[in-house]
């Protein structure tokens, strides 16, 4: 029997197969023996030791997808806020941790991280979406998620909106694209990455391994 159950929440947002494979690889490499389960069942969260919320596309669509799973948002609040289970949000899954998303209207987020998700408006006429490999500038070098992740390591981003963080203490790393925005946010038992660790080759696998080992 595996000692640790990791649930990746499936709410109809994108392909979770490759995400699950990346977590399985990270579980092997970090020797955490984690079992990875992709599930849309809120009750699976009660049995999970760690919870991952992925997400691609628009904030509002993801929010609706999550709300469409009866009891999922309540289960997230209960398990992550109430019971303090380690949580990782990825891309729009990270953005959903914010208070609100301002993409195609105003949408309520989970309200765990202070700030709104707003359109990025890079100066110098840079292209939007921000798509590709960018460098991490680490603000919280001692955070266990960032163990063996160095300033300047690259992560794969693809997004047109970003968190406008209100509490700088909740920004664990940022990146620069004609202006800066959070690359990793977190507090207590929760973290979120604007980039895709499951697409960020060795750095991403290392970061996922750190999440699996994290004892907040």
């Amino acid at each position, binding site marked *: 029997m595996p000692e640790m159950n990791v649930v990746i929440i499936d709410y109809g947002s994108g392909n979770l197969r*490759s995400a699950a494979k990346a977590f399985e690889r990270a579980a092997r490499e970090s020797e955490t023996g984690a079992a990875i389960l992709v599930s849309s069942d809120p009750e699976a969260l009660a049995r999970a030791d760690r919870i991952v919320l992925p997400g*691609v596309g628009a904030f509002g669509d993801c929010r609706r997808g999550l709300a469409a799973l009866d009891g999922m948002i309540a289960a997230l609040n209960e398990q992550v806020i109430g019971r303090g289970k380690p949580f990782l949000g990825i891309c729009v899954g990270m953005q959903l941790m914010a208070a609100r998303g301002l993409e195609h209207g105003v949408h309520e987020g989970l309200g765990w991280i202070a700030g709104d998700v707003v359109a990025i408006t890079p100066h110098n006429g840079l*292209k939007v979406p*921000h798509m590709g*490999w960018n460098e991490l500038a680490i603000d919280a070098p001692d955070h266990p998620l960032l163990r063996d992740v160095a300033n300047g390591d690259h992560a794969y981003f*693809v997004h047109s909106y970003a968190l406008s963080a209100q509490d700088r203490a909740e920004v664990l790393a940022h990146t620069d694209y004609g202006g800066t925005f959070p690359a990793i946010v977190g507090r207590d038992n929760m973290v979120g990455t604007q980039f895709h660790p499951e697409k960020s080759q060795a750095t*991403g696998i290392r970061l996922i391994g750190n999440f699996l080992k994290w004892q907040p």
Partner: protein
Amino acid sequence: MLKVRLIPCLDVKDGRVVKGVNFVDLRDAGDPVEQAQIYDKAGADELCFLDITASHENRDTILDVASRTAEQCFMPLTIGGGVRTTEDIRRLLLAGADKVSINTAAVKHPDFVREAAEKFGTQCIVVAIDAKRTGTEKFEIFTHGGREPTGLDAVDWARRMAGYGAGEILLTSMDRDGTGEGFDIPLTRTIADAVSIPVIASGGVGTLDHLVEGVRDGHASAVLAASIFHFGTYSIAEAKQAMDKAGLAVRL
């Protein structure tokens, strides 16, 4: 700083890698998943599979390639070729693709791009544009591997596709593809400057200088090449080093 992306592309037929010179003279050179792993380890920034016979043959071979690649390579994977319906897109994404590229279907039904972007998100919709020079500064869209003219102006079309929700444009010069003479720089620059979304330059890379030109002179956000990597003329590392030496921001 965001890095310029270097994207090796593999043409795939019946689940095997091929590369045509001007879309004929196909040569078979191996298993796409093994190739993908080599590129992954070498530091490619993304991978691209183009299923060149998708319109005629069984699509499931590419789904198998996608799923086996996604199990091994934790990096962005784009698949194109024969993508006609939202069901095609769904199947590719579920198999393990991160993005799909739409070509002929976009020309036939432009609203398909809008529908796809709304359904799956702009981040996974790449519109592939095959353009040919028809005048000094005139470029026209062609389909079917460059055989069918459409009468569409390439710049207008690129702007329209960006407006419909394409996340990026994969721009191939049909005059240069397979020639090794370098990107069509005026074409690349004209399109890249006309749209606010990233443009991937493709078609014609024969030397490492060509990769540099695509970004420096063509204003592309990413450069795609097939043969020079595929036949071992240059390695990914050599290409990255050449781009770095030329002052481009690359991930080394």
